[in-house]
């Protein structure tokens, strides 16, 4: 029988790994990620995960290397990290994608140092953007459990064969208890059958090279034909990412049919968008809090709605054009900064809607860096302020912030402001 348990977000991810019967897990502790792998090690220790190897390592770089190696042997693998731990994995992240390994990595998001902060924002998850991985976001702990299962299905599909991040807010989800339905493992087995990997290093009749050295042009191997060059390998990753969107939708639909839970169309979720004139665009906890902002704004006569992005890479351009086709304004709340430009979601949405039939005004705010609390009242005020801006286009250029407390800093007052 499926069992509803009160779980923290990290433990929801650990239970998903158990349901997925992961083969190899390696991770190095960092706040706020650590409880994910602590829980998995408990499962291994108590014999609840008899088929799982837990590899103890001395760093995050070794953790990702261990799961890359294990994945290359055909095992279903898992790791997790946050912020600077994830940064320490960085060299190996494009390696995992380039080698086409279906690794799932949970990011319990955390602000990236310096200055040091253990609290949450989304900077770390967004910094992995160009590594060739699929990126999923979650708004609550049930979604974390469900997304890990779906991420394996998508990553392991032969048309995809790419690693996937499953990101969720550090502390705000990772350390918050919520009811989570943990599914019957036999039913999960039907949804997520054992991995049939394209690279099986134990299959000596069908040996394949992993991570070859490539050349600028496809080398001529005579009777074996031409081998791909570096450019062709990279093209293949991009093509697979582009084509993974329908696969994600298909997997999500199947998940919904088996388990009865759905997350929009698997790519993005909406709330009260049917007749909305202004849309909030946000992810993870910011999106969840924004649901209350939508209700609050509607009580005040503002026809607001929410689009919560679930898949950030590949960036779902066609879906987003459809999602925003009936609104005149979009207000974006980014819990990170694309330094030197603006919030990443904000500028990526602008690019996605470039030359779309209805180009809404898009206003971006930076919120909640380094764990500063975000309230629906602040989000609602941001929307109203954006709607009141006389010249939206001018204001679009400058980055605005909600929740900055510069007024508390005495030295700024002495020096006449920032």
């Amino acid at each position: 029988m499926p069992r509803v348990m009160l779980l923290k977000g990290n433990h929801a991810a650990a239970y998903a790994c158990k349901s997925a019967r992961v083969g190899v897990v390696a991770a190095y502790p960092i706040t706020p990620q650590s409880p994910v792998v602590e829980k998995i090690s408990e499962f291994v220790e108590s014999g609840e995960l008899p088929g799982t190897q837990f590899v103890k390592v001395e760093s995050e770089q070794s953790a990702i290397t261990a799961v890359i190696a294990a994945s290359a042997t055909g095992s279903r693998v898992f790791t997790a990290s946050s912020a600077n731990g994830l940064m320490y994995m960085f060299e190996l992240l494009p390696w995992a994608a380039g080698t086409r390994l279906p690794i799932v990595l949970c990011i319990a998001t955390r602000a990236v140092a310096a200055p040091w902060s253990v609290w949450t924002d989304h900077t770390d998850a967004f910094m992995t953007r160009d590594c060739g991985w699929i990126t999923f976001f979650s708004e609550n702990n049930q979604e974390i459990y469900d997304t890990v299962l779906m991420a394996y299905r998508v990553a392991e599909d032969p048309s995809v064969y790419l690693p996937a991040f499953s990101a969720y807010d550090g502390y705000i989800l990772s350390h918050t208890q919520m009811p989570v339905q943990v599914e019957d493992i036999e039913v999960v087995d039907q949804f997520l059958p054992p991995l049939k990997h394209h690279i099986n290093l134990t299959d000596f009749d069908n040996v394949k090279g992993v991570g070859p050295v490539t050349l600028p042009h496809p080398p001529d191997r005579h009777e074996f034909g031409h081998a791909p060059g570096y450019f062709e390998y990279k093209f293949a990753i991009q093509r697979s990412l582009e084509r993974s969107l329908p696969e994600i939708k298909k997997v999500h639909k199947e998940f919904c049919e088996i388990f009865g839970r759905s997350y929009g169309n698997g790519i993005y979720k909406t709330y009260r968008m049917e007749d909305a004139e202004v849309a909030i665009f946000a992810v993870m906890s910011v999106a969840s809090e924004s649901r209350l902002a939508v209700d609050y704004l509607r009580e005040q006569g503002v026809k607001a709605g929410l689009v919560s992005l679930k898949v950030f890479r590949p960036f779902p351009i066609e879906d987003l054009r459809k999602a925003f086709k009936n609104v005149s304004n979009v207000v974006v709340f980014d819990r990170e900064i694309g330094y030197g430009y603006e919030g990443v979601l904000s500028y990526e949405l602008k690019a996605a809607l470039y030359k779309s039939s209805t180009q809404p005004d898009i206003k971006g705010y930076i919120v909640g860096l380094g764990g500063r609390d975000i309230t629906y009242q602040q989000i609602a005020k941001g929307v109203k302020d954006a709607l009141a801006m006389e010249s939206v286009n001018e204001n679009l250029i400058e980055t605005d912030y909600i929740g900055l407390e510069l007024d508390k800093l005495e030295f700024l007052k002495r020096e006449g402001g920032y």
Partner: protein
Amino acid sequence: MITEIKVSGRGGLGAVTGAEILAKAAFLSNNFKDVTSFPTFGTERRGAPVHAFTRVSTNSPIYTRQQIYNPDILVVIDETILTEDLIKSIKPNGTFVLNTDKCAQEIVDLYNIPDDKTVVVSNITHECFKHKLVVGGVPMVNTPSIALLTKVLKGVELTHIKEAIVESLGESKSALNIKVAEIAIENIDIREGKKIGGTV
């Protein structure tokens, strides 16, 4: 309806575990559609003020992820962290639960608690020392403090609190926690608030 509960104490007294046991009790009762529980996140230190939050909802999923600024119920498990702001933060017609050696009326007079607030007190620290519910010299006041809520939070009964304590702490540690929790409830003193109209 969502009820917001804030548990305040000092690092080491178990405010976070208390809030989690409360959430678990509410969850196990099947009287709520959704529950969430989380601490003020960060680098907890023994002795420093610690706040933890629990939300329970009778009818709808809980979407809010912000901290609780104005609780319906404030539970203070260590009187020495009390501040004027903390008391003022309680919602109109809200409830103030305190571990103290004073009676409810004394607390009302001492801290100028407005008439609309229900005040619930019990001398839990004393009972912890008396019955040796003490770890490393620190009285474990969290579980008995949470048990007081069975008198003011509809839907959470003592049986649910007991069940949650056993699930969270294990069989061996639970017996003494439950015993002191029951004594804390026996010793309870309540000043009922006078309902005032209007909303916040």
